[in-house]
């Protein structure tokens, strides 16, 4: 039998479908930690410069047992909690109002956008002048830091609500209040959540700045304390705790979002 010459066609974009095993993502982080530990063990860099992960863990454990960690954690959570709630509530309310009315939008938006880029840390001295050195200025800084991303996201959320949905609501008989309540609020919730997540990171960032103001307790104060003392291992405990807190905070908001927005 004589067969004609053949040219097979094969998949040229197989690389797009490449499957990566689950463990790869764990691999990266573990690899990094192991490498870090080895570098420290071999004394390639002095422990002051880069404490070993094991040393950090040991210290963290000690600090947990003595209660130091929790005491600081609670103080910070309290501040972040209150500041976050105040900033978020104000941000969402003002964002909804500003976004709905074109007039308030035109007037308030430029103000918000020009205040937003001011580094809050530069305002510390003024904030101390205005609010003293108690809990007020700390909560205020955090609330300020939370307010801006939330308000900006809320009103972009409001403006991004598909106008056809508003038209549909009006067509089917909604008055203005119901348009806000039944269309604009739920329609901007995804953007509001994006703002809340952004603000979660910002709030922890500002926690450190806030606790520069005469704080005796708090993770930020702890980090500053050990930074002042140059006890870098314990400093790293605080730093890692902050990053863990950031991760948890984000996950929590994600969970809440999934609960509140089942339609997404």
């Amino acid at each position: 039998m004589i067969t004609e010459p053949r040219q097979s066609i094969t998949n040229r974009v197989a690389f797009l479908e490449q499957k990566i095993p689950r463990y790869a993502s764990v691999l990266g982080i573990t690899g990094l930690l192991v490498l870090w530990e080895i570098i420290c063990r071999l004394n390639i860099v002095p422990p002051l410069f880069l404490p070993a992960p094991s040393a950090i863990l040991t210290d963290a454990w000690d600090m947990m047992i003595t209660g130091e960690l929790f005491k600081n954690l609670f103080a910070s959570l309290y501040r972040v909690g209150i500041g976050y709630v105040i900033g978020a509530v104000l941000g969402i309310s003002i964002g909804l109002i500003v976004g709905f009315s074109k007039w308030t939008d035109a007037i308030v938006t430029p103000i918000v956008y020009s205040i937003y880029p001011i580094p809050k840390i530069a305002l510390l001295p003024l904030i101390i002048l205005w609010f003293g050195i108690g809990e007020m200025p700390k909560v205020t800084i955090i609330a300020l830091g939370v307010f801006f991303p939330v308000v900006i996201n809320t009103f972009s959320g409001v403006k991004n609500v598909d106008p056809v949905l508003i038209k549909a609501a009006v067509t089917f008989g909604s008055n203005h209040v119901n348009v806000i309540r039944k269309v604009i609020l739920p329609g901007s919730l995804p953007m509001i959540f994006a703002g809340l997540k952004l603000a979660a990171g910002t709030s922890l960032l500002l926690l450190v700045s806030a606790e520069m103001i005469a704080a005796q307790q708090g993770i930020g104060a702890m980090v500053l304390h050990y930074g002042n003392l140059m006890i870098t291992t314990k400093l790293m405990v605080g730093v890692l705790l902050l990053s863990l807190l950031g991760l948890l905070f984000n996950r929590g908001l994600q969970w809440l979002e999934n609960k509140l927005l089942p339609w997404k």
Partner: protein
Amino acid sequence: GKQGAEEAGNGSGKESKRESINIGMLKLTSSAPLFIGIEKGFFKEENIDAKAQWFEAAQPIAVATAGGSVEVGATGITASLYNMVAGGQKLVIVADKGREQEGYSSSAILAPSDSSIKSVKELKGKKIGITQTGSTYHYMVGRVIENYGLGLDDIEVVPLNSIKGLMDSLKSKQVDAVLLNEPNITTVVKEGYGKVISQVGEEIEYQTSGVFFSPKFADNKDVAVRFLKAYAKAARYYYDAVLTKKDGKLIPGENYDEVINIIAKYTDQEPDVIKQGLPYMDRDGKLLEENIKTQVDWYAKEKLIDKAIDTKEIVNTELLEQALKELGK
């Protein structure tokens, strides 16, 4: 006199290489000997080109010295310095740069002028403002209250980050007492919103600040000794000008105005302000070696340093002794 010193300098100069030395320091009066040394050319006499590196806070100076960014650091001796040494960063304290001394006003605990607090004893359970944890202020407060049977657990220490913060908090009574140094004490008392409760110098002996060398520089013995010779000479110049006492009273010595003006120039402050706060210093720049041990022990007790360290590791008096020997008198 000046002539003699110059001869001594030149005598030991041999064919010494010209060295460029970076000195990390703050714009504070307590750096006076270094200002004098630079301004009056004492370092140049030793063929040393001393360059000032200005810092905003004490702690980075220690870090920079240990890391070799600057060869010489001159600032307060804080817990962070001990912790760095414990963490493997070597540096050595070689000379005095200011201490608390009985009979010389320098640091004090102040309370608002209308406060009911009259003695240190009454500070129990009160808020006391300091600059930062582990700072010299922290130490002084801790040690002074110990004299009255109190410990750090009995008071609330509030870190306020800056001198200005301390003064503002005292003014607005956000704290019950603060620790301050001269000339700020005079300012506060003059403006009438604060009163002195206790002079630190009357309570404890304390090596507040020092001159320290990076390990590499300390090993370079020749230059190190030359540096200290110039330093000691400047320290004497300072002592003779502003710390001489007659009948237990401070009197302006020779070159008083010159020294004040040099300090004023380097710290960007008014001479009148400078006159309020001239810290005590050893005439030869000698360290209170045993006080360093006291400090280490106290910090360790208060868990402000991580691991105990041996005083011998961080104090080097040999270099200065050698320099003094060469300097003579």
